């Protein structure tokens, strides 16, 4: 959009000049990393030896405890007198409960309480995401407050009993009768009244020029339709909470990916202050966007209050499917027009998704189309229909997971019509500035990622001809696609640094670690900032009594922690400055002229002038030096820069000519995500995302029965995800170019792996078979 002027800025480095692609598992293992450039405010002595932390492939700090079984998850805490909860779920999509027969359950062995809307405590409606800065709930649907049923699977009764088995059995003895109302459970019906929707504070509509006219006039064009189903997160740890009301405090051991916001949201439901909720989640067995506030927390706490007993509520896998939200289904249209050289003249990405009445979450599947390619004219629009179903919610790479699938398949089809190599087509439409905002890129090396991926994969350039070949029954093909995920940093980040007498430091922040290695990465960032050895850094996290209101979401938590640590470090320098004795050359220097490195406070102007931190701590009155800071304004991505991660995914696919069975024997992916802080964690994040995407592409999908709105595959036996045998060797690498605008030089890595493989696989299927697969999941019957 050349009519929009890029934001001006006083100075910019040009990280793209760095052509060497340093990052890869092999290179990273050597640990040959320097400090990120540009992002640092202090010119510390070079990190080396024990002080080298960023870029070092430290093993996960939680790994050993988990392997030993020593890590305690939400459902593993217990208190004297604790009872176990079981839920009864509705079996209609909409209507009214006309009767609840609970007598048999109440009389069953071990039963302590049966709670229904008739005896549940009065509760406020939970605040969903975007309804307030702290809303953490999937929906604002009242929690067991009346006889109304709003989805098939809604909890209608809670049973508490002395054992889980007794609770489960008693739950089966409850009879519920309903008066059914007309429910909207059909995508087609709901789509008829779908409206242009909004997400994260903006309308999901972008129009630049006349994209339809440009499409009609285009020398070459494609106009395609796609379908994607609902997806469920399926964390290895089903949602669970252990609850105790004691001494005016609601104590919750939860599995949240945002402890502070969960606590605030739950406090409001109970009409108490957030200081009266102590919610922790030290270990979380996977989140993917689904470990937020759902009814189970609230029901457990309410039933605990009513029974005056500690409660453990551990959902069954079916329970997770019934009450913890899913990625919404979509129907998308991508139409591309170009001139004969492949310059896009029109980019249309529109479609319909579904949401519930009681939330403000619309699956934002056009986001990559805003930022990935330049086009003379654009029309991006998402319409949302309303269905009577379980709340739709965030799931790994919201929007981009399915949006890159559709956009990148369309580009492949356009490349074929143009007889241009798919990489070349992308290169020709690589934007100089952000295509829709006009802002300059903080750092972007997409083309390097394409080229390096092509080299490592052994990509054979093509010009409109399939390269696929036959090997016995197997049709073999290759395909590629770009990957995309935005940089974000949410407000609310904070951290406390406490130096001890032994030269170590304690980092405290209310961040979440769902298994991705937050504590490990945080310790490395802190080590680098403080100049304290990695092993001398202790990290406490996952507790709402700690500083900050962080959430592990949108791949932004590490950035939020980095900014918080930078801020806390500045406060710490001031604290340390106040402890410098009058005899020291450092005396009187303001904090801005001081730094910490190699276990010492030093003068930025004269790094040889230094005082060991342990001495400063010893001279303090309390024997510790502590400082807390809050991550500053988030304008780097909201106002100033275009900050987005990209990547390139290459796949080989084999399709059986007899059966249509699809196998993916090889995936190569190169990412441009800024600085990689820990290659071991990064590889795992990328691979995990790719495997999840493999599932989305080939097998995943909620079987939502449109006759009654019931999900019919609520188990691992029927909701298929990849097995080990489905997962090939996955070669991942990265450009490792620090983003000068990101707090640690890193843009976030948790979700981008989810974007790209679906299109790369679909494109490879075409290369192998000549058949285009535009509906997910792509299963064998589509290719027979």
């Amino acid at each position: 959009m050349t009519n929009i002027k890029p934001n001006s800025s006083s100075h910019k480095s040009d990280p793209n000049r760095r052509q060497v692609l340093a990052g890869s598992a092999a290179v990273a293992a050597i640990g040959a990393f320097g400090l990120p450039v540009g992002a640092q405010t202090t010119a510390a002595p070079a990190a080396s030896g024990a002080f080298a932390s960023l870029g070092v492939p430290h093993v996960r700090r939680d790994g050993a405890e988990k392997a030993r079984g020593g890590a305690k998850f939400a459902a593993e805490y217990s208190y004297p007198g604790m009872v176990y909860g079981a839920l009864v779920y509705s079996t209609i999509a909409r209507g009214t409960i006309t009767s609840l027969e609970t007598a048999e359950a109440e009389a069953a062995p071990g039963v302590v309480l049966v709670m229904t809307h008739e005896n549940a405590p009065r509760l406020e409606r939970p605040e969903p995401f975007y309804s307030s800065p702290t809303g953490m709930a999937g929906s604002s649907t009242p929690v067991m407050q009346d006889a109304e049923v709003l989805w098939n699977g809604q909890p209608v009764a809670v049973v508490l009993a002395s054992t889980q088995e007794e609770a489960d059995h008693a739950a089966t003895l409850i009879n519920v009768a309903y008066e059914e109302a007309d429910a909207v459970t059909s995508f087609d019906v709901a789509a008829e009244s779908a409206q242009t929707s909004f997400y994260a504070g903006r309308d999901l509509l972008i129009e630049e020029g006349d994209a339809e006219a440009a499409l009609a006039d285009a020398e070459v064009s494609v106009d395609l339709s796609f379908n994607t189903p609902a997806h469920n997160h399926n964390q290895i740890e089903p949602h669970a909470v252990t609850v105790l009301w004691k001494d005016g405090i609601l104590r919750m051991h939860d599995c949240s990916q945002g402890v502070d916001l969960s606590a605030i949201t739950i406090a409001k439901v109970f009409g108490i202050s957030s200081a009266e909720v102590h919610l922790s989640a030290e270990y979380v067995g996977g989140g993917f966007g689904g470990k937020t506030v759902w009814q189970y927390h609230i029901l457990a706490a309410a039933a605990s209050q009513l029974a005056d007993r500690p409660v453990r509520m551990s959902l069954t896998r079916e329970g997770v499917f019934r009450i913890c939200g899913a990625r919404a289904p979509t129907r998308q249209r991508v139409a591309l027009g170009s001139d004969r050289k492949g310059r896009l003249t029109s980019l249309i990405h529109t479609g319909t998704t579904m949401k519930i009445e009681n939330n403000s979450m619309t699956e934002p599947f056009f986001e990559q189309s805003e930022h990935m390619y330049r086009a003379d004219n654009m029309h991006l629009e998402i319409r949302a229909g309303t269905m009577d179903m379980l709340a739709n919610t965030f799931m790994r790479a919201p929007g981009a997971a399915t949006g890159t699938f559709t956009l990148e398949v369309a580009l492949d089809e356009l490349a074929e019509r143009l007889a241009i190599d798919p990489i070349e087509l992308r290169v020709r439409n690589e934007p100089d500035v952000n295509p829709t905002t006009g802002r300059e890129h903080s750092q972007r090396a997409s083309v390097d990622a394409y080229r390096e991926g092509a080299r490592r994969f052994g990509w054979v350039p093509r010009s409109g001809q399939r390269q696929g070949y036959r090997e016995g029954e197997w049709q073999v093909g290759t395909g590629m696609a770009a990957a995309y995920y935005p940089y974000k940093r949410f407000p609310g980040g904070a951290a406390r640094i406490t130096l001890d007498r032994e030269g170590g430091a304690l980092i405290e922040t209310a961040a979440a670690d769902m298994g991705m290695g937050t504590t490990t990465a945080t310790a490395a960032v802190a080590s680098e900032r403080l100049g304290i050895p990695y092993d001398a850094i202790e990290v406490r996290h996952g507790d709402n009594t700690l500083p900050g209101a962080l959430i592990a979401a949108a791949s932004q938590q590490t950035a939020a922690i980095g900014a918080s640590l930078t801020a806390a470090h500045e406060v710490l320098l001031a604290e340390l400055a106040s402890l410098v004795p009058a005899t020291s050359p450092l005396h009187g220097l303001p904090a801005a002229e001081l730094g910490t490195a190699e276990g010492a406070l030093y003068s930025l102007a004269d790094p040889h002038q230094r005082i060991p931190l342990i001495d400063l701590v010893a001279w303090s009155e309390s024997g510790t030096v502590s400082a807390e800071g809050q991550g500053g304004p988030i304008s780097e991505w909201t106002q100033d820069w275009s900050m987005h991660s990209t990547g390139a995914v290459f796949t080989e696919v084999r399709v059986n000519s007899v059966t249509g069975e699809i196998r993916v024997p090889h995936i190569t992916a190169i990412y441009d995500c800024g600085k990689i802080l820990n290659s071991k964690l990064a590889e795992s994040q990328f691979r995990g995302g790719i495997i999840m995407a493999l599932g989305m592409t080939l097998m995943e999908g909620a079987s939502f029965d449109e006759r009654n709105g019931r999900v019919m595959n609520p188990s691992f036996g029927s909701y298929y995800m990849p097995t080990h045998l489905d997962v090939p060797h996955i070669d991942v690498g990265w450009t490792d170019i620090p983003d000068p605008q990101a707090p640690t030089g890193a843009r976030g890595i948790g979700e981008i792996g989810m974007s790209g493989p679906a299109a790369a696989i679909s494109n490879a299927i075409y290369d192998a078979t000549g058949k285009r697969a535009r509906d997910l999941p792509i299963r064998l019957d589509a290719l027979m």
Partner: protein
Amino acid sequence: MNPLTYEKATSSTDALERHDGDAAKFLGAGTNLVDLMREGIATPTRLIDVTGLAQSIEEQSDGGLRIGAGVSNTAVAEDATVRAQYPALSRAILAGASAQIRNMATVGGNILQRTRCSYFYDVAGSRCNKRSPGEGCDAIGGFNRAHGILGVSDSCIATHPSDMAVALSLYDAVINVESDEGTRSIPINDFYVLPEDTPDIENQLNPGELIVSVDLPAPSANRRATYRKVRDRASYAFALVSVAGSLIIKDGLVVDAGISLGGVAPKPWRAIEAEAAIVGSPPTEETFRNAAQIALADATTQPGNVFKTELAQRVIVAVLQDLAGDAQ
């Protein structure tokens, strides 16, 4: 799960004595029964564990093999005689479940496992004639990708999920059962009962009868056999279609053919007419295609499983061609 008692039988006689009516159930490894109990589909109040019984695989004087009902699936698949003489059985077992489940699951339990129809499993929210006779079938008109196209009825379209049983069907295995009344032997191809309008009745086993062993007839010389399974992922998924096939070719003509299908019917589906159409013909693609069409001629599909008719035919042809090899 219902409250229940658990006891371990010391012998088949002991097990039968302990079985005192409908509320009792024999328990193998429980890889299916315990799931059914958790879901509230099976509600026994007395479990009689028979896993320690009938643990041997013994060659018989007639050249056949007797496999104890309590032998693990893994032990059968790894047995040297089974691998050499009944390769389709070994392959079928290894194509099923996971290594952990195969290590636990018993032969008797595998034969008696119940359909994985998701409507059958959804006690709270779906109608199922198999679970609650006369209630209706929500799989018809619902999600039925996994469901049957042969031998199904208006009241039930569920499939039998076993891989092992498909190979047993190919080999004309015989199931030996014991009860208070004595023993009897039932060919596996007569053992299962089609649903018609009583899909709750799945086999000929009477209440209180215990499967004690399975007999495999003596292997035929020069018989080639294999098992091919097609599913929605590479492992740990039930068959959409599977084929156990066998051929004996002599002097350029097929003298014996076996085709048993899995994933398409309420029982392992022996395609007798298709087999007959092959015998006496040269082992050509045309012969096999013709047979495959015969095998699926009576298929009745649902919107979700229309593809199975074509898929089953293709896999039959591919399996038979593979078996024919150079003789084609």
